[in-house]
């Protein structure tokens, strides 16, 4: 039998139009999720308006204060040239996050469309698209990204492109799986019966109903992409040295990790927190939209 509450509670529930206050209330009950959101929002703030968060310049240092440990004045300490590391991390957020966002957008856009076409068309198209995806999956994504950057030239935009291309495959796979599940639903068959053409059915029924998993994946992919962008920066494929970029900051601090560990640890910590926070948010989104 059905759970009786389902039927009792159904008429009162308004799934989509949950008031904002209720949502925030729900957030307050999950402290970890709330902290994750705060971290992500603060870092976005850094990227948008770094000046609001620090009065130091990311480029000019005070050579007298080189390698100052973290203090009230310099929260993350200073580097070899006496530049404030907190300021460099804050300004670096812009480069890293823009590249990340671009990467995820590329992967999301191309991957979702590829998966949709493959899942919806089936047959030869499906086979062709998915075998191509398999080829992408067979190459380690970091290696693929390095190849792309090497071909296109070292720059942050190219890193974004490279990371994006290397994660198209996972989006395509998830989207295809969702589409295949949705296409067999009665309401899709019903829509054909009601006179919709293939395009109408696809855009109105299939896409909206298969997107939630892909959106959750996008949130998850943000964390992975931050890491990939920073890794490439760390290896020197990204922005040239004076620029603050998280991967580069860690790379610069690496040489002094034995004597002045904060130079590498502090930017690394920022990086790690963003990745974990993105992961947490993705998980909660997936739980909320589980069918």
């Amino acid at each position, binding site marked *: 039998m059905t759970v009786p509450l389902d039927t009792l509670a159904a008429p009162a529930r308004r799934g989509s139009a949950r008031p904002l206050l209720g949502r925030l209330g729900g957030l307050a009950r999950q402290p970890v999720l709330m902290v994750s959101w705060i971290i992500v929002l603060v870092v976005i703030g850094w990227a948008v308006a770094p000046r609001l968060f620090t009065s130091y310049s990311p480029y000019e240092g005070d050579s007298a204060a080189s390698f100052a440990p973290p203090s009230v004045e310099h929260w993350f300490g200073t580097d070899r040239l006496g530049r404030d590391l907190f300021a460099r991390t804050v300004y670096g957020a812009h480069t890293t996050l823009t590249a990340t966002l671009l990467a995820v957008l590329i992967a999301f856009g191309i991957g979702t469309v590829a998966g949709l076409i493959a899942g919806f068309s089936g047959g030869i198209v499906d086979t062709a698209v998915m075998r191509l995806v398999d080829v992408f999956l067979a190459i380690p994504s970091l290696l693929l990204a390095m190849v792309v950057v090497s071909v296109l030239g070292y720059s942050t935009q190219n890193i974004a492109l490279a990371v994006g291309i290397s994660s198209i495959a996972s989006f395509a796979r998830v989207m295809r799986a969702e589409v295949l599940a949705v296409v067999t639903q*009665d*309401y899709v068959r019903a*829509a054909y019966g009601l*006179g919709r053409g293939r395009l109408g059915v696809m855009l109105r029924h299939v896409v909206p109903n298969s997107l939630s998993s892909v959106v959750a994946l996008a949130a998850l992919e943000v964390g992975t992409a931050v890491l990939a962008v920073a890794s490439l920066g760390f290896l020197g494929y990204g922005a040239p040295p004076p620029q603050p970029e998280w991967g580069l900051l860690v790379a610069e601090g690496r040489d002094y990790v034995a004597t002045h560990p904060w130079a590498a640890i502090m930017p690394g910590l920022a990086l790690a927190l963003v990745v974990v926070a993105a992961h947490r948010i993705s998980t909660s989104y997936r739980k909320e939209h589980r069918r």
Partner: protein
Amino acid sequence: MTDVPEREEDPLLRIAGLAIDYRTGRRRWTPAVRGVDLHVDPGEFVSLVGESGSGKSTLVQGALGLLPPSARIRAGSIAYSGVDVTGWSDQRMARVRGNYVGFIPQDPNTSLNPVKKIGQQVIESVRFNAPDARNAAQHREAALESLRTAGLKDAERVFHQYPHELSGGMKQRALIAIALAGRPRIVVADEPTSALDVTVQKVILDHLMRLREELGIGILLITHDLGVALDRSDRILVMQDGRIVEEGPVRQVLENTTHDYTRRLLDAAPARQAGRLEPTSGPRARPTDTSPVLRARALTRTYQLRGGRGRRRQLRALDGVDLVVRKGTTHAIVGESGAGKSTLASILVQFTAADSGTVHIGDRELTGLGRRELREIRRDLQFVFQNPFTSLDPRFTVGKLVAEPLQAFKLATGKQERTARVVELLGAVALDESHLHRLPAELSGGQRQRVAIARALAPNPGILVLDEAVSALDVSVQAQILQLLVDLQAELGLSYVFVTHDLGVVRLIADDVTVMKGGVVVETGPVEQVLRSPRHEYTRELLEAVPGAGINGAGTSGGERVGAAIAHQA
């Protein structure tokens, strides 16, 4: 069936004042069972009847100690043979279940472990409940014995088979064998036959009755089907909103119905109706123009099945099926699962292509039409799905759902015109403007099916194909939807193709009926003729298996009996 078993001091099961809540918020509890008293004596067959949401399954879970973590027992007590087990730990309850009370779960298709052989699963139950039998050979013997008791003639073979190799009825017997393995004194069965065909249901219920007589066990049957309850039990309890509203011996409940709800349930039962439903507007005019609107000829459809080790098997889902639907009438297609009736319905609207054969709508041939032409034809030919929980896009509001065909066929252009038409359509199915902005999840099953019907009516079709359109609904809701369909037919002159497994429903709504078995039409003709004097053995069998022959037995209404009575006249 009614001889009184020897009285013992305590009943096998006594539930007193039981109240169970579900957690619906942090500190909010919603009651599901609100103070129920119930007892089952040795050798007694007690039925607990109620519609979905009445709390009957929760009650049983509570009695067996199988409540989900989100539920709690607020008050009351549960006692087996006078031993109060309320508040026992799961470990202690596990000893009671199996040894003392056997449980037969609802859906045989999901209740067996698919990767274990039947034998192993029965042995598991034997080993757990009969520790005195020490060695494996004894366990095996006991398990085989249990399978035989459950009515599986070829116990040796079933012992070595996996669940997927068995039919639904055999799986249910295997589950009965598992329930009986611990030699329980009472068997609790939660909708044991709801997922099965009527003929299989009859066999399983017959067997339960026999077990009760042979082993003297008590049986508590949970069911939504008043017909089954009336046919089989000594005593009936009717449950609504977590309370028992009516209780007593079958005859008493039938003759002196004290509660409104019970009366409504009885009236809603298809077997209660004398004949075809009349529209509420008045007696319907016999359709004069009875030219065929839909003709199917020699439809054949074969599915390729993948057998083990690369073998290919073919399944003939349809084999040369003919069908003629007269204008303004209802043509029912009846059969059990696997009869090919859904495939037929699906081919009629061209969701599925036939291998061979033709379908004519009016004078147009459907098979082999292109997408564009098909779309045009579909204005006149609409489909209503069995399950209103899956046939509506969960993201669309009611307004958008009903407006979809209007948009797709470009029928009502302009927002205002479209909204007006949607409201009009909702009115036709007894819903109103207040439902416009609701999502399907916020509607009950009956309301959803109304929305689906409104949507199908939107392009003004002449023919509706309804695939088990009322089978997923409670009887009282089912009665409303059937009445609605009859009213709409009278008003709009619609023709229906009505696919169903329920012969009771056929009598209410159909003018003609086609009986199918194994992809072949075994009998076709006007309803009165086919139901009154079935020519084919299979039709007779189906009619005999319909439960609820007893509903009219008490003579409360002058109507004839369905099922057995009709068949015996022949």
